[in-house]
């Protein structure tokens, strides 16, 4: 579904991502893991078209989208749920959801809001409240639901576990598995390597802007040396 080759991202003279190549198969959860500042979010933002792409190609469903603007990419089927605190805090929960469906017809948006409120009933209860007044976990749910409102072929998720209590993290990850079972393709960026490897089928370990290890999540988890060297799990 997604095929990225030799992706380079540079902010002025600072190169944040070097020669990253990765693939995401339809219906899979693929994770990008690695320490803070490794360039994981830059990769997602380059896919979304909001980070400066220096070189490389991004092919999505057979189309090269690397020259498209951010909103064209959303139309093409790539939506991002940025990390939780990036909801539109001053706008209501419902308005956040509506804007997530900005590029969809109005009738579909209404139906989808109903669906999101079934996934996360709290979003219905707090529909009229300012998104900024929600708890961290609720904001994360809103960010994911808002991403889904675009009905993306590929959902990009940036650090859904960031700053959340373990129980909430569990809930979010179980939800992601449910989404995958319903056929949603997900590219997941996580610092929380153990959780991410548990739900993903394939993983890339990013360090200093490049891929240092990649493989099936199950095998990476079994490899003690990788755990110690890159994941800090041992």
């Amino acid at each position, binding site marked *: 579904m997604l095929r990225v080759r030799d992706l380079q991202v540079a902010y002025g003279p600072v190169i944040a991502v070097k020669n990253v190549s990765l693939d995401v198969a339809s219906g899979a959860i693929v994770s990008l893991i690695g320490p803070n500042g490794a360039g994981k979010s830059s990769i997602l933002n380059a896919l979304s078209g909001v980070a400066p792409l220096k070189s490389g190609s991004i092919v999505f469903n057979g189309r090269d989208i690397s020259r498209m603007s951010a909103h064209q990419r959303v139309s093409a089927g790539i939506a991002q749920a940025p990390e939780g605190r990036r909801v539109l805090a*001053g706008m209501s929960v419902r308005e956040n959801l509506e804007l997530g469906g900005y590029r969809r017809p*109005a009738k579909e948006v209404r139906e989808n809001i109903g669906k999101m409120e079934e996934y996360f009933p709290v979003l219905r209860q707090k529909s009229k409240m300012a998104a900024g007044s929600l708890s961290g976990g609720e904001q994360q749910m809103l960010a994911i639901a808002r991403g889904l409102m675009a009905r993306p072929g590929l959902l990009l998720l940036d650090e859904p576990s960031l700053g959340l209590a373990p129980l909430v993290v569990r809930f979010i990850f179980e939800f992601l598995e449910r989404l995958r079972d319903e056929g949603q393709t997900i590219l997941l960026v996580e610092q929380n390597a153990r959780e991410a490897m548990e739900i993903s089928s394939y993983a890339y370990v990013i360090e200093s802007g490049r891929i240092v290890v990649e493989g099936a999540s199950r095998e990476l988890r079994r490899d003690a040396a990788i755990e110690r060297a890159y994941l800090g799990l041992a």
Partner: protein
Amino acid sequence: MSVFIQQLINGFFIGSVYGLFAIGYTLVFGVLDILNLAHAAIFTLGGLSALWLTRTTGLPVWASFCLATLFSGLLGLVLYRVAFAPLRRRADSNLSGLISSIAMAIIFEAGAFEIFGARTVRFPQGMFAVRVYHFDSLTFTSLQLEIVAIALGLMVVLSLCLKHSRTGKAMRAVAESETTARLLGIPVERIISETFFVSSALGGAAGILFGLYFNALGPDMGRSIELKGLAVIILGGMGSIPGAILGGIAFGMSEVLTVALTGMSSLRDAVAFSVLLLILILKPSGLLGRGRIRQA
């Protein structure tokens, strides 16, 4: 006592025009975090072009009002394309945008000066039937009522659009976070252009109403309202639409009350701006600001 109430009413009338002017100012500030200092020049050109349309084409006032408002909106698009868009990708675009908007203001004013001349001009006598109403000792004209109705009406329509329309919601999203808006698939450049169009159309409409109210227009008419508009949006809270409306009316009333109470019209601006200073000291975020202090 009735003089006092009469003055309050007059202040309300002119304050509604200040509010209409300021609402466009604050709209652009809210979305781009940039002060558009060419807003007053658009105000001037809006008023002068409406007058020109009325005098040379013989169109009825309402038709020239609509056309000149549209023209002001288009000027806003030119303004954005020339003065702001090329600078947006630079790190210091807030300051350079401010400066380039001053440059555009000067260009617009020079254009107005060349085209319309330096003299103060008026709408032709008998253009519209003005009726005078008396209630007890209070007096106001049908023209004043129409002006305040149009100003308030435009402000209400804008507020409703921002609250409920798809584009209005997108504008608010861009105002909160441009990056998040782009991630949601909102075409940010187009939304900003539309914001400039709406802001400038309202600024132009304010210029026309101002010209009708005082029946005097000239290439320098923007000067007097430029600082007042800035004061109004600081008073109301930067970026706040209801704040701009309330601030405009409060400012208009404080002006006329000063004259009414002291009898000295030279004190008008001094007192109005003293009120502004006081508000800044007591409530730095403005009357309806969101608590967070703007460094403007």
